[in-house]
């Protein structure tokens, strides 16, 4: 080994990068569990009942949203997006954080795209025939 040649410091591994389909903030991490109030219904207190009512309504809305997504699967859906864009496609699925929507046969001015991924933040509304 020639003098003056330095050995690079060893590393155990590289830093973990972002997950592609999730925004992170793992709810099973020790910090999350310790610092976030439990979502389980606790014994009601006077101020607790207003929170519980809001929690119940939120849970109901969330359930309705998820059931809508399920119902939409396989159907031809109209997506109204930003910049006055309106497209039709067959809805497949969304990812866990509803960041992306997987669709087939997306009708665009450039032709029909067999498989595509729509960014949820670009979508304003979606409508379909039940």
């Amino acid at each position, binding site marked *: 080994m020639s003098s003056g040649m*330095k*050995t*690079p*410091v*060893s*590393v*155990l*591994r*590289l*830093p*973990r*990068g*972002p*997950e592609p389909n999730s*925004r*992170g*903030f*793992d*709810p099973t*991490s*020790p*910090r*999350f569990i*310790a*610092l*976030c109030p439990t979502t389980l219904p606790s014994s009601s207190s006077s101020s607790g009942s207003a929170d519980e009512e809001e929690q119940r309504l939120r849970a109901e809305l969330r359930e309705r949203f998820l059931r809508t997504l399920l119902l939409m699967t396989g159907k031809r859906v109209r997506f109204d997006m930003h910049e006055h864009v309106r497209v039709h496609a067959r809805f497949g699925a969304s990812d866990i954080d509803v*960041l992306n929507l997987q669709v087939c046969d997306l009708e665009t001015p450039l032709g029909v795209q067999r498989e595509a991924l729509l960014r949820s*933040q670009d979508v304003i509304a979606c409508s379909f025939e039940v």
Partner: protein
Amino acid sequence: MAMRQTPLTCSGHTRPVVDLAFSGITPYGYFLISACKDGKPMLRQGDTGDWIGTFLGHKGAVWGATLNKEATKAATAAADFTAKVWDAVTGDEVLTLAHKHIVKSVNFTEDSTCLLTGGNDKVLRIYDLGKPEAEPLEIAGHTSAIKKALWCNNDQQILSAADDRTVRLWDKNTKEAVKTLAFDASVSSMEYIPDGEILVITYGRTIAFYNANSLDLIKAVDAPASIHSASLHPEKDFFVAGGDDFKLYKYDYTTKEEMESYKGHFGPIHCVRFSPDGELYASGSEDGTLRLWQTAVGKTYGLWKCVLPALKAWWFNISK
């Protein structure tokens, strides 16, 4: 035996990283937030660089990001004319504060009850996070866009740097400028060290250290290239700086001598900060990455492992 620095590269951003900030030391370690032109600021574990989550919601480049001491809240400043406050544990957006122009800088008070913002509309704003609907306190005076605004002197005063080539010290209560420093070049960055009341300012190729109360110059150092950001080690024995030539420079604070320079980034360095324990420093670059660098090269810390030369071959074999 001399060791060569192995920087840890944190990927994930898709555009230049323009700002970064560390939290204080919490029972869960310390954390790092990065502001990026891709509009998606990220939270990482401070000592490893591991990604924890991405704050989603901004509709434009994020120019400034900060964490409170406990790393329970985050704040971001963006080109979509808003500053946002986030829950840094769940990643949820807590508050959106509408501004009249691009917001460049955000800073919490020590107790995280107030947020200071500054940006292209040249006005400093103080928001009471307990009363978010109330109008913020406004401090006007700068004649150009504000680049950085920081609380100082136990949150009784404010330091601001703007494109009008001045750094101003304001009294929070009277809203008056107590002192003004004028430069002949644009100030590229500012760091406030409460312990010791030191202000680190970079402009042109200069890294200058000021007394944060009197704004008297303590010392100044010129680097080989234009510097965009510098940070002083908590123990005030070194400082690091980075800028246009893609390199990170490490200087002895006492003697002002350049000790080392490190290559690694593929673009100009926009921000550099020491971790709260001083064991590493993080740099953000035009190349879209954050890199973590060891202060004591070769020490076992975070993901870096000190391996003695005689044991090296043996260790590689058993680690496979």
